[in-house]
């Protein structure tokens, strides 16, 4: 395009530089604020827990089999809470892993486009159901149902909320696994079909192994969510810390304990108050552990395609 008047290249314009810098600084603050908040949470947790551990020895905390901070004769063993948490998460996973995987397999490899397009929003809707609803669903629907099968099942137990948490995280596990499977390039599916494989063989022998890292990550993220789940267990599992591996017994989880105590009127700085932070710190460490595990799994299964 011929221009009649060609302007000269001008020297550096300062106000433009300043504007750019301001925008950059603003974005930097936004980006770091999330990190800062997380750091602050960790600092508070550690600080308050430190106060707790001045009064309770770590050895007692980790080995005592009773958690009774609000009793006259207080005991501070995290094991019962830890056990309840992992038990509930374990039951949830037994439900969520097979169901979530099947949902993902169906949606990614078998469902016609129209079905997938209409089912996925429903799954995401399921994720939006308030957890308190799931809690009462566990207590008032699933538990009575289970009592038909297991007659002497107590009204509060770990099994029922575990199953319900499992159902609750199916959409999540399914949706993350489905994303992983859909990310497998079509060229691999074509190669498999061209070898004479059926759709099921292609799914099980090519797509799933190729998506293994993503599927494993989905499971671990599912565990993290099940571990952190609060309302369902607080409502349906009972709130008595109980060192047991039997899911038909009532028990309390770390999250349920925190809710229970935080709702009461504990004086600031009391040991009961500080015990919340110690329990929270343990929860944080567990989640961190799972995230590291997810990371390692990803490295282990990473495949180049």
């Amino acid at each position: 395009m011929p221009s009649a008047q060609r302007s000269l290249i001008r020297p550096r314009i300062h106000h433009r530089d300043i504007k750019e810098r301001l925008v950059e600084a603003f974005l930097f603050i936004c980006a770091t604020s999330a990190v800062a908040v997380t750091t602050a949470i960790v600092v508070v947790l550690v600080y308050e827990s430190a106060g707790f551990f001045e009064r309770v020895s770590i050895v007692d905390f980790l080995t005592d089999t009773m958690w009774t901070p609000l009793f006259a004769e207080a005991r501070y063993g995290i094991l019962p809470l830890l056990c309840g948490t992992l038990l509930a998460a374990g039951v949830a996973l037994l439900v969520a892993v097979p169901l979530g995987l099947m949902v993902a397999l169906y949606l990614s490899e078998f469902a016609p486009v129209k079905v997938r397009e209409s089912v996925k929003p429903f799954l995401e809707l399921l994720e939006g159901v308030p957890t308190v609803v799931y809690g009462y669903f566990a207590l008032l629907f699933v538990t009575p149902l289970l009592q038909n099968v297991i007659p002497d099942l107590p009204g509060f137990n770990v099994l029922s909320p575990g199953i319900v948490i499992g159902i609750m995280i199916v959409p999540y596990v399914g949706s993350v696994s489905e994303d992983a499977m859909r990310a497998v390039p079509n060229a691999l599916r074509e190669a498999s079909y061209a070898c004479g494989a059926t759709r099921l063989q292609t799914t099980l022998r090519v797509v799933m192994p190729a998506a293994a890292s993503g599927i494993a990550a989905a499971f671990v993220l599912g565990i993290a969510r099940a571990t952190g789940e609060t309302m369902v267990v607080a409502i349906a599992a009972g709130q008595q810390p109980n060192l047991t591996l039997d899911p038909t017994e009532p028990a309390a989880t770390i999250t349920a304990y925190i809710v229970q105590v935080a709702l009461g009127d504990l004086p600031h700085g009391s040991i009961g108050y500080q015990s919340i932070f110690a329990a929270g710190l343990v929860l944080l460490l567990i989640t961190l552990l799972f995230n590291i595990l997810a990371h390692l799994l990803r490295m282990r299964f990473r495949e180049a395609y």
Partner: protein
Amino acid sequence: MSAVVTAVPFATQSVSADPKVKSRIRGLNFYYGNLQALKNIDMVVYEHAVTALIGPSGCGKSTLLRCFNRMHDLTPHTRYEGEIRLYPDDVNIVSSDIDPIEVRMRISMVFQKPNPFPKSIYENVAYGLRVRGVKARSELDGRVEAALRGAALWEEVKDRLEEPGTALSGGQQQRLCIARALATDPEIVLFDEPTSALDPIATASIEDLIISMAGSVTILIVTHNMQQAARVSSYTAFMYLGELVEYGPTTELFTRPRHQRTSDYLTGRFG
């Protein structure tokens, strides 16, 4: 009309005097939804020869190739009309009565981009056998070795069969894919622009391989590269806008094209 591509060295393989017919295409139409991608194709594929499909982008050459192993069945709203007869069985492999998986058991395929599975070299080659239910280790071992030898890859990988196939170089990956296609002892191997993602040296080795394979298996190859068609094939089909414009022995088609369009394409006037 003068010879158009005289500088091209032709394949040493000659057209045999009385070639056996491996497959006969009759009145083949193919539709993507309402779009007709192949129009009334009539063609013969000769046994143990390389047949090249050439033509500009969108001419239907890949579409025709993928009719042979019914890959279009994986896409909804596709439709075949007419027939591709496979001999000696004398069945129409695009008929809806024929199971596409049965067809793919006989006719294997090598794709444009090397697409090894994220599995070991061994398992990549064994895949087609495993999906057929072959479990015996001795049989698998023998056929994997034979296929890798057939793809001129055995010497390079025999000591590292357990390494992932994806760790090989591009040319090796494509030869691995050829081994995978050969392992099941196919009657026809389809090549869909098998060298378009490779460097010239890897391309040359794949071309040599295709020529050497032709003695034992029937080959159909789609290529953008006319020199490649001239180098590897005995027969060439030139397609344009879904129609088969001209088909014949490669030397004849390249030196004495009968149609103006073929000649224009070969001389680079379009496409």
